[in-house]
């Protein structure tokens, strides 16, 4: 799998290169500024770009903007955006084109390399991966809405995992239940929220997020 990395801090950039190389990813470019990143994403057409939100030249959200511009030029180009903090505003901007192939994670999720590389593969395959912190904020915002209060505690748990972009198998493993139990919960959730249930993981996460963001 071909990867482009955009990270300005030398230690973190080298750390990512080392980690991903060790897991068999091919690093086609590892750059330190937003203009270089945009060029690498558009020219190299990687399977996935791993992007720090904050990059030179302005050291604000240049990395995020470069990722959004690259996706405007190459629709659906998979990008996994990393940041020291997560914002719903930025998650919305990344998800706005509904094209999938988007990830948005806190930087310290890199510590768990199994989950991190699984997230990279999901995004590269066109899936959506959202940090649990973003999902927590999304759910918190809607916590007083009637349809969500009708969910059981377990259903809310499953809803949160679905919004993070996890498959039934991953949710089942996490909650120590069978996959069948998870799909039953999912059906219950979609019925209570009046959403159309889909077997496609990515369509499902987009439906959940669209509901939570509305």
């Amino acid at each position: 799998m071909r990867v482009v990395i955009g990270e300005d801090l030398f230690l973190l950039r080298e750390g990512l290169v080392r980690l991903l190389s060790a897991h068999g990813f091919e690093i086609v470019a590892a750059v330190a500024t937003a203009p270089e990143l945009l060029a690498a994403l558009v020219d190299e057409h990687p399977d996935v770009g791993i992007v720090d939100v904050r990059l030179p030249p302005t050291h604000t959200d240049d990395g995020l903007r470069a990722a959004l511009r690259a996706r405007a030029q190459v629709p659906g180009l998979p990008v996994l955006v990393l940041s020291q903090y997560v914002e719903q505003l930025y998650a919305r901007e990344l998800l706005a084109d509904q094209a999938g192939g988007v990830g948005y994670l806190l930087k310290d999720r890199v510590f768990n390399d199994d989950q991190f590389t699984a997230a990279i593969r999901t995004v590269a395959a066109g899936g959506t991966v959202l940090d649990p912190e973003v999902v927590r904020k999304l759910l918190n915002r809607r916590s007083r809405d009637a349809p969500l209060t009708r969910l059981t505690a377990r259903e809310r748990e499953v809803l949160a995992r679905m919004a993070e972009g996890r498959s039934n198998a991953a949710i089942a493993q996490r909650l120590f239940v069978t996959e069948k139990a998870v799909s039953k919960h999912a059906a219950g959730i979609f019925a209570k929220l009046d959403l159309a249930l889909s077997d496609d993981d990515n369509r499902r996460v987009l439906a959940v997020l669209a509901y939570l963001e509305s």
Partner: protein
Amino acid sequence: MRHRLADSSDLELAARARQLTQRVQTLTQTRHDAVDTATAELRRIERDLHDGAQARLVALGMSLRAAERMFATNPEAALALVTEARETSSRALTDLRDLVRGIYPPVLADRGLADAVRALVLDTPLHTELDLDLSNEVEMPVAAAVYFAVAEALANAVQHSGARTVRIHLGHSAGLLRAQVTDDGAGGADPARGTGLAGVERRLATFDGILAISSPPGGPTIVAIEVPCALSSAKTSSC
């Protein structure tokens, strides 16, 4: 004739002198408050770092050192310590993130006041209507003061008012940067209680800004903030 002219200019001078004296008094007070606020803020940051991230980094170093010693004799216990160290480093990052948000919210640094307030609204568990009418970019120190004022008013509406809907207006008009946070809650908010809004008011005063609250029993509660454009905008003429 000449006499009278001299009289009127004497009067003008006296009036001007009174205005200046008053201005100096205001500036002395607000400067004093600003220094106090800044000092208290630095103390808080120092304490948060000391008790939070610094303490966790010490614990992290100790776990790693213990793991180092056990590595040869008891690799399983060493591994458990390394895992613990990784978790501690995550918690240190969480502490630092919370601290940074309190000093300077990331979206405010990235995008300025309008998007920072948009982001604030997205994090609010109340139906919130946002009406933005900013004719130009607000300078950073004022943007931060107004952001924290709106954040405080919004937090009060969420926590105390029992409101269902909040309306935020933020815009430039008549030489002023104005922000207004209105909720349809129970009202009766007492600005004297709690230090949140008082601190916000002191911070705004540094920019000749004011904060006013109207909260009759039964509501609505309106928090209004005004800062003169001359001090809040990079391009003063068009504000």
